[in-house]
Structures are given as C-alpha cells and as structure tokens.
C-alpha cells in the first residue's frame, strides 16, 4: 500500500515544479507575432524623392518590407545583403522596400548614397506603419508573397541564407501559410541604454 501521508507533500509540489519547468524552458524574450500568414497591412508612403509607393500596386511581386534606421548598427551589415538580394532576384519580380524608422531625411539620404541600393526608401510619419506592422525595433523585415500575404517575419538583420531559402519558392508562386518568425542578434529596440534613445529625434 502506498504511504499516502509520506508522499502527499512531495506530490503536492509536483504541479509547482511542472509549472516552473514549463516556464523556465521557454524563451521569455520570444514574442510570437500574429502577422505571418495574414495579408500585409497596406500603405501609401512617400519616398525620399517625393514619389509615393502603394503596397497594393506591387501585388504580384515578392516584396521585402525592411524597417531600418541610420542609427541602427545591425542595419549596416544587413544593407549589403539587401543590395545583393535586389540585384539577384529583382529581374524575377523581387522588390525591396526600405521604411525609415524614427530617423531624418538627411540621414537616410546620406546612408543610401554611401551604401547604395536602388529601391524606394519610404518615410513613415509618426511611426504609423511601424505600429501597423507590430514593430519592436530595427531592423525588422517582412517578406510578402505574390498574393500579398506576409510569409515571413525577421526580427534582427535578415541573412542572405534566409533569403536564399525563402525567396525562390515565393518567386515560383508558392504561398506559405506557415507562420515563420526568425530572430538574429543586433535587433535594437532603441532602448534608453543606447544613444538612439529619446523622443528628440524628429524631422528637422
């Protein structure tokens, strides 16, 4: 017979341990985005050159919406990946759209001149589009399939490998209902510890 009195207390502790084990094995920083699989929020935004870009007008292309800022360090390395991707898949219907996050036009213009890249650079007054896309920081990228659905969300700089894996199937017309979210180091939430902090950064 089981000595219930002896085992009662350790048994009572088991649910607590189970709860702790469940909690401690999860990544507290991981936040699952509800966006992948849904239609990409539409926008009409002004470019550096004063034109405007309508996301819906790009339906049929595979679009990479990339949020970045000149004060974002990880965006430096990511930029070269984007240049290469646009050059490689551009003719097949791939389009990078850069959305500038909490930065000034002169900064953005200087950045694009220095580092190259011939895609539209969009301005997002009041971070409206950033909030529509549930942005936490920069860089963050959303890969939109030909049907206008978000197939992939990248938190942190997007890597060439990830694009090489994701873009060709999307170009081939595949749509993924898979909700994929990847993270990589270097993602900045413009936290107060960093010199990018504060509400001072506004359009001059």
């Amino acid at each position: 017979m089981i000595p219930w009195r002896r085992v009662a207390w350790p048994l009572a502790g088991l649910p607590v341990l189970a709860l702790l084990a469940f909690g401690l094995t999860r990544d507290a920083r991981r936040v699952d985005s509800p966006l992948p699989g849904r239609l990409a929020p539409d926008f009409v935004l002004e470019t550096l050159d004063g034109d405007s870009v309508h996301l819906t007008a790009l339906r049929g292309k595979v679009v990479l919406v990339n949020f970045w800022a000149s004060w974002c360090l990880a965006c430096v390395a990511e930029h070269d990946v984007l240049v290469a991707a646009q050059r490689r898949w551009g003719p097949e219907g791939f389009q990078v759209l850069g959305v500038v996050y909490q930065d000034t036009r002169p900064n953005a213009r200087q950045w694009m001149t220095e580092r190259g890249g011939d895609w539209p650079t969009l301005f997002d007054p009041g971070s409206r589009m950033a909030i529509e896309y549930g942005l936490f920081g920069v860089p963050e990228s959303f890969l939109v399939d030909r049907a206008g659905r978000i197939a992939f969300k990248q938190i942190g700089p997007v890597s060439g490998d990830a694009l090489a894996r994701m873009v060709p199937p999307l170009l081939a017309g595949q749509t993924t209902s898979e909700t994929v979210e990847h993270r990589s180091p270097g993602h900045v939430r413009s936290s107060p510890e960093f010199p990018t902090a504060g509400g001072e950064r506004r359009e001059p």
Partner: protein
Amino acid sequence: MSRDRRSAAVVTIWVALTVLVPAGVAASQAADSAIRDSALDAQVQAVAATLRCPVCQNLSVFDSPSELALSMKQIVREQLAAGASPDDVRSYFVARYGEWILLRPEPKGFNLVVWLLPAIALAVGGFLVVMRARRWLRQGRVPPELEAAPLSDLQTRRERLRHGLQDLDAEAAAGRIATSDHDWLKQRDTAELDRVSEILKRRGRAEAGTSPAPARGAAPAAHLRPAVVWIAGFVVFLGAAALALRSATTPRAAGAPLTGLDVAPPEGGSESPANGPTDPRLAMLEERLRRDSTDHQALLEVGHAYLGMGRLDRAAALSFKAVQLRPRAPETAEAYAHLGMVLANQGEHEVAVQSIDEALLLHPDLPEALLFRGIVSYSLQRYPVAVEAWTRYLQVAPPEADTAHVRGLLETARRLQRP
C-alpha cells in the same frame, strides 16, 4: 593632450550643443503639450496604461517617453475620439503585437493559472491550517488522569483502541453497524488514540533526555502554543498578501514614481514643482542643485539620470556644466562620456569621438565611455576601434550590465573588420 587641444575640444562640444539642443527641447515640448491638451486625456491614459510599450522594459505606453509610445498614444487618442471603445483599441494593438502588448492578459485559457493559482493556494493553505489547529485543540484537552497514568496502562490502552478501530471498520464493512454510528465512534476513538499516542511519544522523548517532560498542569497550553503561532503566522501572511495584491493591482496615478526606477514623469516638461521629477532620489539631487548649482556630484548624477530617461537636452546641459566646473577631475570622465553619447545621437560623430576620448583620458576603463566609443566607431565604420573598445568594455563592464547585446555587436564588428 595639450591644454590648447583640450579647450578646443570643449569649445567644439559647446558650439555643437548650443546649436542642437534648443531644437530638441522645442520639439519635445511641443509634443508634450500636444498630448496634454485634450479632454480625452483621462480615457487615453486609462487605455494607454494597459498597453505595454514595445521599446521599453516594463513600462506602459502611458508611462513611456519613447517616440513609438507617443505615436501609440496618439493612435489611442484618435481611435477613442472616433468612437472606438477601449476594448476595440486594445484589440487593434493585439492584432499587431499579439497578446504580449497587454499588461494584463485576458483571463482565459492558460492565463487563468495566474488568476486561479493564488486563490487555490490560499484555500488549500487555509484548509491545512484549520485541520492542524483543530487537531491541536483536540489534543490539548487531555484529561488529567490520562496524563498521570502509568506507561504500561497507556500502552495497553493504545493497543486496545487500535484493535477497537479495526473491529469497528470490520463491523461497518459487514453492515452490522449504521454508517453514522460508525463515523461518530471512529472519530471519538481516533481522537483518543491520537491523544494517547501523543503522550506516549512525549514520554519517550523525555526518557531519551532530548526534551524535559512538560509540567502536567501546563500540558494544554504547551499544545496550544504551536497552534496559536500557526494561526498568527497565517493571518500575518494573509494580510501581507492582501497588501501586496492591492499595491500590485492598483493603477499607478499619473506622475507617481515607479519604485526603484529613475524614470521621468511621462509628460513632465520643465523643472516646475508640479511637473518636476518624482523619483525621490532624483528630486533630492535636483534640490541640491537648486541650492548649489556647482554641486559637481549632483550634476553628474542628475545628468546620468536624464540620459537614462532619454532626455538628452537636459543631460547634455548638466554634463556640460560638470565639464566646465572641473574639466580635469577624474569623475568628470563620466560627463564627457555622456556628452559624447548626446552628440552621437545628434549625428555629430566626430565631436562625439573627441568627447569620449577625453573621458578615456581621464578614466581609461570607464565602462560607458568604452561602450559609446565602440558604438560611435562602429557607425563610422571604424571596426577595429569598435572591436577594441567593446572587447575592453566586456572586461570592465559591471556585472549587472546586460552585455549580450554588445557581444552580438562585437561579433558583427569582428566579421566586418576583415574585408
């Protein structure tokens, strides 16, 4: 560095600040008043206080001074003004950020654990305490003749009670005795068995010499004492839990301080007493500065606090004053580092480098100076300098600093260093 070059650097920094800071001040004040001036304020505050700021650590959208939070507050205001209900506004953000954005998750599904567990724990704990207490009280009523009985009598009695209880169960199982009678008899005999066993146990302990035998007359009191302690402890626990719950669930009043955090009141614009800093330590330091505007230590600390809040204009002014007062004091290194950070934020990278170099001349291992030097060098694409600065930073960083991010950046800088 020569005296001339040093003063040249100070002049450059000064010029840069006088040009850049007023613009920032004007912009932030305009934004502040725009947010303040509305009849919707209370409702906006109520909703914004339930949303988590995506770019901060543990601040609500209402409390956060960050630009993104300001934009979110604006969206909350617009939607409420357009007739949306607070729940509609919350759903709007949940659809974009997930349930993470809610500071108080919906009480459904797995989240219910958070609501139910405390109640269950209290109920189970209370039940156990009551059971214990009842047993002690029952044992406390030991008849004096039982206490005085010889050991052998007690042992015999215990055996008899045990057998009696077994027989009782057998009788009940055979259906020869009514269930209610069985229960009543069993309860009575079990209680007596407990009492006898307890006395025997105590005598056994007394004989082994581990504890003195209790005085006979004092027996009930000795039994009652642990019960009283348990119950008193439980009541104290309940009270503490109730207090903690109340303070944890009461929404923070506008401008009230956040415990342990140097955070500005969300819309506090100037140093006027009504809008001034509400953090007690910061308030104390500000007071010291009002009495003596040359209090170097206070200048440094308040500058640091404002930097942490992202109020760069104020941080720059105070740090610059600290530099002017004692340009060569080792502790001024911190002020130079802060200035460097403000300047870098304004895009003045070259002047920022000068300021940070000043800091490192005065204090070669100042962690924040090393961190900022790395950041500025990185954005100037001087990767070897960034690698060197961050490597040293990681060696001297205070243990509580979150260095994971810097490690990540250092990796990238190392990769970029080699063409």
